[in-house]
């Protein structure tokens, strides 16, 4: 069961390269035959010479980052990217979502689809597609959204996971909130699951937990890659009978609340985080004896889902990345509510002055499109804040 990854823009390509690196080194660690075979098959295909080639397509509107990622991979000596599995231009998207979505996306659609098709055909069985991108810039966000739409059309029954990197609250790109709002509103209709890493949060991990003094984007990307790797590597589930073949992407995390559910809950109310669903993944020593009852406490979950339905537990006795024991929690909950609300709020304030709007209209989207996106996201915010 294989996964094809599409890396989009600078962030998508930088994080993607770190991810494959983590997965490959974890897969090749020690004598863990079934685990290794499963992991390698999932993310790499093996050439006649025994080289591991990532099941990935690298997309960007300028060539520097792709060149860098490909050479970093080759330098590892353990794996590489396919020589022709990449597409770039010499233009850049100028941090403009509309330029990415309306101009570059459609213009290069055929070339990108062809590259993805080739990777998909190399898989015995496709279990899903991962698109990796940031929401702040122009290519990852704009082209990424457009390509997700194309993939959804071509592979209607495949599982599509979008891994999104949210920018620091302050100061990467001035129009980052516009680009984020437009991306999220569109992806909400297209994606099966949206997995989010926020630079601010990862930065805190680097400084407070890892004690790194001069944090670079490399450090941030490596943390993201580790977390993502710990989710995507093979695991055993209750019904997999010791086989690492279970599709780790097969979980439906997009549960929608039924209409008319309960009272509203204010964002600032001192309530704790209510979850729709949680996935706990344990790896390493003593996984079978770990006590996880606390995660099944009904108080954690929304009232219209039982904790049996909402909580999932996967285990693997194989240690991940040399950690004797590790645990990863993937949560569909109100945790992202505040950051999302902040992002929408800032974008809305800017929109109220119509600042920068002329830059987007130039490339083909209208004020109406902005309003639609704002409306979509306000609905998401409303749904999540009403969970109780």
């Amino acid at each position, binding site marked *: 069961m294989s996964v094809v990854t599409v890396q989009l823009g600078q962030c998508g390509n930088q994080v993607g390269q770190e991810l494959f690196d983590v997965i490959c080194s974890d897969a090749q660690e020690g004598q863990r035959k079934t685990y290794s075979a499963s992991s390698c098959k999932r993310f790499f295909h093996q050439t006649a010479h025994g080289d591991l080639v990532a099941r990935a397509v690298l997309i960007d509107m300028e060539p520097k980052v792709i060149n860098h990622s490909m050479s970093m991979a080759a330098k590892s000596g353990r794996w590489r990217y396919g020589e022709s599995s990449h597409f770039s231009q010499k233009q850049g998207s100028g941090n403009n979502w509309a330029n990415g979505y309306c101009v570059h996306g459609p213009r290069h659609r055929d070339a990108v689809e062809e590259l993805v098709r080739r990777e998909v055909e190399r898989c015995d069985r496709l279990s899903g597609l991962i698109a990796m991108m940031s929401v702040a810039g122009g290519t990852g966000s704009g082209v990424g959204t457009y390509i997700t739409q194309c993939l959804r059309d071509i592979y209607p029954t495949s599982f599509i996971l979008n891994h999104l990197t949210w920018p620091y609250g302050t*100061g990467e*790109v001035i129009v980052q909130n516009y680009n984020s709002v437009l991306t999220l509103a569109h992806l909400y209709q297209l994606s099966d699951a949206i997995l989010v890493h926020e630079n601010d949060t990862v*930065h805190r991990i680097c400084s407070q937990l890892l004690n790194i003094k*001069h944090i670079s984007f490399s450090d941030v990307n490596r943390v993201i890659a580790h977390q993502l790797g710990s989710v995507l590597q093979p695991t055993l589930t209750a019904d997999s009978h010791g086989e690492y073949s279970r599709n780790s992407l097969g979980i439906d995390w997009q549960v929608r609340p039924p209409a008319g559910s309960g009272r509203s809950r204010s964002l600032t109310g001192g309530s704790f985080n209510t979850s729709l669903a949680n996935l706990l993944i344990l790896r390493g020593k003593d996984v079978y004896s770990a006590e996880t009852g606390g995660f099944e406490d009904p108080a954690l979950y929304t009232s219209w889902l039982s904790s049996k339905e909402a909580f999932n537990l996967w285990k693997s006795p194989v240690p991940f990345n040399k950690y004797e024991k590790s645990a990863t929690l993937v949560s569909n909950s109100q945790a992202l509510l505040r950051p999302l609300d902040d992002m929408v709020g800032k974008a809305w304030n800017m929109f109220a002055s119509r600042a920068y709007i002329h830059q987007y209209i130039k490339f083909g989207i209208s004020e109406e499109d902005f309003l639609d996106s704002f409306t979509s996201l306000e609905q998401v915010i409303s749904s999540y804040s009403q969970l109780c």
Partner: protein
Amino acid sequence: MTQSVVVQVGQCGNQVGCRFWDLALREHAHVNKRGLYDEAISSFFRNVDSSVGDGLTFTYLNPQAVLVDMEEGVVNEILQGPLREVFDSTQLLTDVSGSGNNWLYFASRRCTGSGLGTRVLSLLEEEFPEVCRIVTSIYPSAEDDVITSPYNSILAMNELTEHADCVLPVENQSLVDIVNKIKVMSHGAKPGLIIKRNSTVTSGQGGLSGAEKPFDAMNNIVANLLLNITSSARFEGSLNMDLNEIAMNLVPFPRLHYLVPSLTPLYTLADINVPPRRLDQMFSDAFSKDHQLIQADPKHSLYLACALMVRGNVQVSDVRRNIERLRPSLPFVSWNQEGWKTSLCSVPPVGHSHSLLALANNTCVKPTFMELRERFTKLYRKKAHLHHYLHVEGMEQSFFSEAVASLSSLIEEYHHLDATKAKLMPDAPRLSIAR
């Protein structure tokens, strides 16, 4: 990395342009010791030797440039100088007699850049509307020896406001001040505080040209501005920034596209026993008036947006720490409280371990424009020297009145934003969702 073309117009434009190419070659040679033609170089240079492909050693590089002038003097000098092998004859345009070049039919060479330059600008917009046009223009000081320079400036500004995507105004006075500051440091400095050779922002040594000519020091500063803006397009980094991202992030409203440039460091100290100025000091310097290339007071006006282009061994945490530190003292417009655009390029300029270029879209340009308008009005009221312009075919008096009206409305737009500065603007009410 995108590819770019540099258009150099007039004496000033060509002299600065050549400093740029000289220093750019120096920069690439410093990094690319084996002389391989790579992606970085290809953003600004063409490889003209067809037998040499990517990744192979090149012998001939051709800058992607167009050199325009009304007379052949300056361009000829270039063709006889050390850069002669780099340009080819198809890139030069000196035979531009004929109509359509409104206000350059005048003795002073200073007019070519403004007149012909802005004409070229509007032609570029017509031919290549989607290509970003970034203009570096030198603004005259109040004591400019060309009497009619206010006319040229106002007429040019009208074109710049309408046809450029963004403008980096540079004032001669600021360049003079920086040159003098460096001179003082070099000559009167305390023992042990010696400036490292070739590290000043005014130095062109290590490039192709030999002894430096009078305006070279000032032109080198502007050339360094251009090098820094294009560095992220030419070299790798953890957070790249293309030229079109400058316009996208720093221009919230189409006409308000005048950006205040600020460069640091101006030099590096040679004495290795003196610890290098702390990184944070570099960020503080970028927001000091001494490092600005125009005379203005951004801290007492309103920031609409700000970009920090960092080069060298600087990480994202360094940038974040400094933004947090400086932010409280910088007034930002209410709808862009976090209006920072950053880029990180791994390759520093030659002679430095790191550098910072700050570009600010700030209402502090308003006084500069108001002064310009005043100088214009003094002349125009008396119709002084107007006949020189009106004699040129195609030139009409209405051009003048339109130009000054355009400038007035620009000033008004900045004024309007300034008025919001003192007020506490409430957040716009959010959309509410019916249940």
